[in-house]
């Protein structure tokens, strides 16, 4: 595995988590479990700075 695809891989994983959390959040909203909506919404928000961080860390990696 070439190291320079590490960043792409991490970001793809983050996006996958985004999708899962969003799905969860919406369903929990309709189930009226509002605490869980806040938890997963919060996780979704935290993932964004994490993605920026992962981008910055890996963008200059050489093979």
């Amino acid at each position, binding site marked *: 595995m070439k190291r*320079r*695809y590490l*960043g*792409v891989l991490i*970001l*793809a994983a*983050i*996006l996958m988590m*985004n*999708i899962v*959390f*969003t799905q969860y*959040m*919406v*369903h929990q*909203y*309709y*189930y*009226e*479990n*509002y*605490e869980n*909506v*806040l938890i*997963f*919404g*919060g996780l*979704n*928000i935290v*993932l*964004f700075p*994490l*993605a*920026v961080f992962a*981008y910055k860390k*890996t*963008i200059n990696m050489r093979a």
Partner: protein
Amino acid sequence: MSDKNNKIPFNEDNYTHNIERNNERKLDRRGFMKTLVGAAGVFAVSSLPWGAVAAKELMGLGEKEYPHKKITDVSNLPIGDAVEFKFPGDHDDAILIRLSENKYVAYQNACTHLRCPVFWVKEQGEMICPCHHGKFDVETGAPTAGPPRRPLPEIQVKVENGSIYAVRVKRYEA
């Protein structure tokens, strides 16, 4: 006549004439990663309204009482029949079913799968969603078949002076 229009005004190596158009549409790894980060940002921003509404509900602001709304008269609804109405808002479809002399059930009848209107099939004694054949139990609103996973929200009704009123939408039990 001056020759001021006859000159090359500036040499080409500058900030406005150096646009390199070759490969400008090529998506390299850097560009792709930027797109991914941007997508994460979109997810983050689109979580905000859900969080806001959930926080509002948690603080009890969503618990407001709706004015009781008359659905129909008892005499207009034979046993086994159903009538559709709107509750609590003008765009929230709901259905009232008379199961026996004194037993009425009412639900918000937007299917919990993809919000198609659920209707009452008297012959089968079931509530059926036409879109993907979801079925709901008429006594409880619980899904019994098909894609829906969540019960229909129940509406509390009361009978007063021969009329049926919608009182409020029940919460799911935690």
